[in-house]
């Protein structure tokens, strides 16, 4: 276990660092409130216009709680790719690469440390807003059941974002890739519209992609928890985590040979 103790320490340090500026942390998390309010307006009118209580297995309350968790996962994750790109641009990558730790595990520990409180505060503000708008979640226990899937979602996000960040070794500026990834996650992850409301062909495609494992799976598990859904979500997520970790390690090794360090 000893080799991993340093990564645990990195995780703890970043976790504590994220509390160093509580105003900053709270301020950033308040963003979820207007999002949830506008989602409520949109879906209240949509359900009312459709004249139904339940659409594709989701009530208005389910839909709002689903969106709350989806937003929490998305808003909780730090901008890893951008940070890595900045490290390459200003040359500080040299100081990270020459330390006695694995670069990817260092980034993973630091990212998770930064994620925890960001996500918790988003969940608190988003949860209170949705509770006030539509009442308590139908299955509060769903939150506990969804926790492993939420962790898996962050690992998936990490793998993809680290790959985008590593592309900075070659192209330096990765902002275009991060925008596109974020929007692909919006559309194929079901972040603004639950995938269940999509046309059948698009649902089938989206549910197979990693974006749905990173957003839709955990959020749907939270609102309609069941053993079958849990097994489905976790097994697909695990398959994507294994596949993307493998690709990430290869990309990292190749990226190192292409890196040009700026400055000094």
């Amino acid at each position, binding site marked *: 276990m000893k080799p991993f103790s340093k990564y645990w320490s990195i995780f703890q340090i970043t976790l504590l660092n994220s509390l160093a500026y509580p105003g900053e942390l709270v301020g950033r998390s308040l963003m979820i409130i207007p999002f949830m309010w506008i989602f409520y*307006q949109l879906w209240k009118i949509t359900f009312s216009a459709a004249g139904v209580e339940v659409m594709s297995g989701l009530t208005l309350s389910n839909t709002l709680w689903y969106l709350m968790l989806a937003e929490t996962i998305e808003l909780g994750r730090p901008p890893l790719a951008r940070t890595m790109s900045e490290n390459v641009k200003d040359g500080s990558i040299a100081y990270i690469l020459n330390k006695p730790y694995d670069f990817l595990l260092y980034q993973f520990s630091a990212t998770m440390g930064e994620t925890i409180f960001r996500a918790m505060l988003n969940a608190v503000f988003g949860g209170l807003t949705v509770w006030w708008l539509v009442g308590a979640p139908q299955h509060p226990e769903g939150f506990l059941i969804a926790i492993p899937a939420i962790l898996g979602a962050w690992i998936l996000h990490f793998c993809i974002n680290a790959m985008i960040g590593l592309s900075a070794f070659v192209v330096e500026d990765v902002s275009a890739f991060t925008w596109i990834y974020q929007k692909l996650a919006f559309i194929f992850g079901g972040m603004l519209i639950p995938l269940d409301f999509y046309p059948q062909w698009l649902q089938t495609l989206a549910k197979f992609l990693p974006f749905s494992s990173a957003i839709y799976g955990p959020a749907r598990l939270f609102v309609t928890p069941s053993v079958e859904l849990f097994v489905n979500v976790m097994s697909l997520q695990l398959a994507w985590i294994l596949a993307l970790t493998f690709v990430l390690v290869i990309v990292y090794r190749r990226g190192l040979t292409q890196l040009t360090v700026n400055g000094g």
Partner: protein
Amino acid sequence: MVDDMKEIKFLLAIWKTNLLSAMEYRASFLTQTIGMMVNDFIYFAIWIIFFERFKDVRGWGVNDMYVTYGVLASAFGLVSLLFGNAFTLSDIIAKGRLDYYLSLPRPVLLHTIASRSIASGMGDFVYGFISYGLSGYFTWDGLARYVLAMLLAAVVFASFLILTQSLAFWFGMMSNFSALALNAMLTFGIYPITLFDQYAKLILFTLIPAALVGAVPAAFIRAFSWQTLAQLLAGAIGFLTLSILLFRVGLRRYESGSAIQVEV
């Protein structure tokens, strides 16, 4: 009059310098422009999926979304391209970086906000026109209204940024609040205005003037009316005046950071 011409020439010279600077990194400029257009398209695809299933939101259909999204994207893009520092004005104030602009014989606010150009703004700007072209509302006189409405919306946008970011004169670092205000403006601007009741609409015309960069310009583009034109003109003149006044009042409280600043 002579002074006004001098300032316009000065502004044109800054924009020309910004453009030449961007052209030094052509690959990056193109990547960011194309990346932002792809990003906009993917984001809008969510609305296409939504309206494919639910048809309309209280009479607001996908065609209306094309126009609203288009004019908002173009206005946002134009401000990013021409007044890029409007997005980081609070940082400039809080970090004492106004010193550089104060030491030169030019209007401080204009010089500061025009001194940076965000390349991705070109992607938003161009995408807006494409979105309007696809809306089904395209006519040549409509295009003329599009340009006018977009310019007025850009004035409101820039003024709103100056207003929120100038609060840094009183409260110091405001980057979280500024990001929150900008996100609220963009989110509320994109969503159908028919979602909101009278009280919410009052907020969208005043506190967060999202209606003046989304729904009202879109209505003016679809069909000319003196009422919408008057709303746009009053909004642009009113917010611009207010933002300049607030900046000037705040500037009297400005304290230099005494740091050595290098403006490149």
